[in-house]
C-alpha cells in the first residue's frame, strides 16, 4: 500500500491510462486527479477520447494499460464494490422500459435496498430534479429534457462517491439546456459530489466544473483549474478551441507590489502576479475581458492599465458575438464584441481601434517549454 500513499486525500485518480481500438490509439493520458467534491470537466471535440476516459474512470471499460484509484485504492472493472460507489448518466438518457420509479430505483434494487426505503428515496430525488409525483408514468413517454432529469435522478439517488456525466445536456434544445445546466450545477454542488463531466461546450464546463482537461486526439492538451485553462490556454490549438488567441510569449521586465510588466517583444502588458524580472512567461487574456474603443476617442478613466492602439487583423462570427483578432504592435489578442457594436463602430479588417484590458485580466505563467526558443 505504501506505493500509493501519494493518492491519499484524492477521491479518484488515474495513472497512465491508454486505450486502442486496433491500431488507433484513442486514449493516452498521464494522470487525472479529483479531490473529494471536485467537479472535473473533460472538454474537447468529438472523437477526442472524452467518453472513453469517462468509461475507464467509471470502471465501465478496461484500459489497455494504466490504473484507476478510488480513494487511494487500486480498482478495476471487475471490482463490483468499487463500481457500486459510482453512477453515470449519458448523452442519451437510455431509460429502461417500465415506469419512472422503476428506472430510478434500478440501482437501489441492485444494492438490496428495501422496497419502502426505495420508494421514499425515489420520491425525494424526483422532487429534487423537478419531477415530483411522476413515479407511475412510463419512461418512454417523456420528452428529452424530462428523460434527462430521470437519468440524473437515477444516478443521484445512489448518492455515489463519484458521479459520471457524459454530455448529459448535448441532445437538448438551448432553452432547456441552459435551465438544466444550472439545475445540474446546483445539485452537484449541493451534494458536494465528486463529478466527472464530459462536454464539448465550454460554457457548460464553466458553469459546472472546478477543473478541466481539454482533450485532443486522446491526449490532454491542457489541464488545470477552469479559470487558468480558460484564461491562458497553453498552446495555439487549445486557445483556438477555447475561442482565444495563441498564448503570448515574453519576459518579465518589472515586478513591483504584485504588478508585473511583461515585454512581449514590442508592447509591454501589465499583469498581476509575483515573478522575478527576467522570467520567461506565456501570457493571455480572455476575449470577453478585452474592450474596444474607436480610435482617437477619449477613453474614460478606469483601472484598466493596458491600453494599446491596435489594428483589426481578422473578424469572424462566434456564436452571437464577433470574434476579433487584434494586433497591438506585434502581439495578438482577441476580443468578443457584440454584432451591434461592430456595426456602430464600423469595424472591418484593417480598422484602427483602441484596445483596453485590466492587469487583473492578464494571466501569466512561467514558460517552461518555450524559454529556450525565446533565447535562440
Amino acid at each position: 500500500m505504501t506505493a500509493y500513499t501519494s493518492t491519499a486525500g484524492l477521491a479518484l485518480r488515474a495513472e497512465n491510462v491508454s486505450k486502442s481500438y486496433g491500431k488507433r490509439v484513442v486514449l493516452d493520458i498521464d494522470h487525472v486527479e479529483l479531490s473529494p467534491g471536485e467537479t472535473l470537466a473533460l472538454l474537447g471535440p468529438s472523437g477526442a477520447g472524452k467518453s472513453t476516459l469517462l468509461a475507464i474512470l467509471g470502471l465501465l471499460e478496461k484500459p489497455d494499460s494504466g490504473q484507476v484509484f478510488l480513494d487511494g485504492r487500486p480498482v478495476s472493472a471487475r471490482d463490483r464494490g468499487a463500481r457500486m460507489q459510482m453512477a453515470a448518466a449519458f448523452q442519451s438518457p437510455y431509460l429502461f422500459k417500465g415506469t419512472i420509479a422503476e428506472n430510478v430505483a434500478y440501482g437501489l434494487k441492485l444494492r438490496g435496498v428495501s422496497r419502502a426505503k426505495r420508494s421514499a428515496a425515489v420520491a425525494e430525488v424526483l422532487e429534487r430534479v423537478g419531477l415530483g409525483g411522476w413515479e407511475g408514468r412510463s419512461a418512454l413517454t417523456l420528452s428529452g429534457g424530462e428523460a434527462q432529469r430521470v437519468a440524473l435522478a437515477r444516478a443521484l439517488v445512489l448518492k455515489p462517491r463519484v458521479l459520471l456525466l457524459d454530455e448529459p445536456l448535448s441532445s437538448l434544445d438551448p432553452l432547456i439546456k441552459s435551465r438544466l445546466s444550472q439545475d445540474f450545477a446546483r445539485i452537484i454542488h449541493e451534494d458536494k459530489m465528486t463529478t466527472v463531466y464530459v462536454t464539448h461546450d465550454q460554457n457548460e464546463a464553466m458553469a459546472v466544473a472546478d477543473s478541466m482537461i481539454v482533450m485532443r486526439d486522446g491526449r490532454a492538451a491542457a489541464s488545470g483549474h477552469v479559470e487558468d485553462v480558460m484564461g491562458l490556454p497553453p498552446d495555439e490549438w487549445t486557445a483556438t478551441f477555447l475561442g482565444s488567441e495563441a498564448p503570448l510569449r515574453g519576459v518579465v521586465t518589472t515586478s513591483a507590489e504584485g504588478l508585473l510588466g511583461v515585454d512581449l517583444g514590442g508592447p509591454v502588458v501589465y499583469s498581476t502576479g509575483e515573478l522575478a524580472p527576467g522570467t520567461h512567461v506565456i501570457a493571455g487574456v480572455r476575449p470577453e475581458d478585452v474592450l474596444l474603443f474607436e480610435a482617437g476617442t477619449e477613453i474614460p478613466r478606469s483601472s484598466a492599465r493596458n491600453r494599446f492602439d491596435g489594428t483589426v487583423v481578422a473578424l469572424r462570427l462566434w456564436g452571437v458575438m464577433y470574434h476579433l483578432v487584434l494586433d497591438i504592435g506585434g502581439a495578438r489578442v482577441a476580443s468578443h464584441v457584440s454584432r451591434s457594436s461592430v456595426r456602430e463602430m464600423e469595424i472591418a479588417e484593417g480598422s484602427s481601434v483602441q484596445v483596453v484590458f485590466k492587469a487583473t485580466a492578464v494571466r501569466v505563467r512561467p514558460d517552461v517549454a518555450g524559454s529556450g526558443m525565446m533565447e535562440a
Partner: protein
Amino acid sequence: MAVFIEAIVTAVRLMAEGSPELWNIIGVTFHVALVSTTFGIVLGAPMGFVMGASRFRGRSVLIALTNTAMAVPPVVIGLVVMMVLSRQGPLGPLGLLYTVDAMSIAQTLIAAPIIAGLTSAAVASVPYKLRLQARSLGASRVHEAFLTLKEARLGVVAAVAAGFGAVVRGVGAVLMVGGNIEGQTRVLTTAIVQEARRGDFGLALALGVILMTITFGLNGLITWYQHAGERWERGANA
C-alpha cells in the same frame, strides 16, 4: 363449396362429440409442441442472447449458420434424426424411433434455431449503451443480461411464438420420425395428410380448422400481449 361447408360442420361435430381419438391427436400435438418449444427456448434463447449481445470471434459465422438452420427443410431434419435414432444409428439402442420423444427431439431441432435467430435480432436491437448505463448503476453481467432480455421481451416473445408456430404446423419431420401411428404418434398435421390421402377431405379439413383455431387463439393472445405492452410503453395511459 359444399365440401367446405360439410368440412366445417364435421369439425364442429367432431369437437362437440370430443371423440377420444380426436382428443388423443390434439393431446399429442400439444405435448410435442410444448416439449419441443420449451427445449427450443432452453437451447435457443441463451444462444440467441449471446449472439445478439456480445462480440466475439466467429460471431458472424455463427449467425450465418443459425440463419441457415432456420431455413433447413423439416424433412431433412426428420431424415437426420431418423438416421440417428434408427436401429443402425448411434442412438438406436434407445429405441426412440416412432415415439413421441423422437418427434419432440426433431421438432426441438426445428424450433431452437428459429428462437435463437429471432432472439439474437431482438437482443441486438437493444443499444449497447443501455447496457453500459445499467453497468454504471452497479449491474453485474447477469443483471445486464436480464435487463437486455426484458428490454427485448416483445421480440423474444415473437421468437418463441415463431418457434411454437413452426413446430405445431410442421409435418415433414414428425411424419418421418413419428410414423403417424394411430393413438400414439399421430398429430393434427399428420392426421390431415392421412385423411386427405384416404379421400376423407371433410375430416381432413375439419382437423385443419381445429389446428387453425388453436394457433389463431394462441397468436391472438401473443399479439394482444405485445400490443398492450407497446401501448403502455408509448404512453396511452399518460
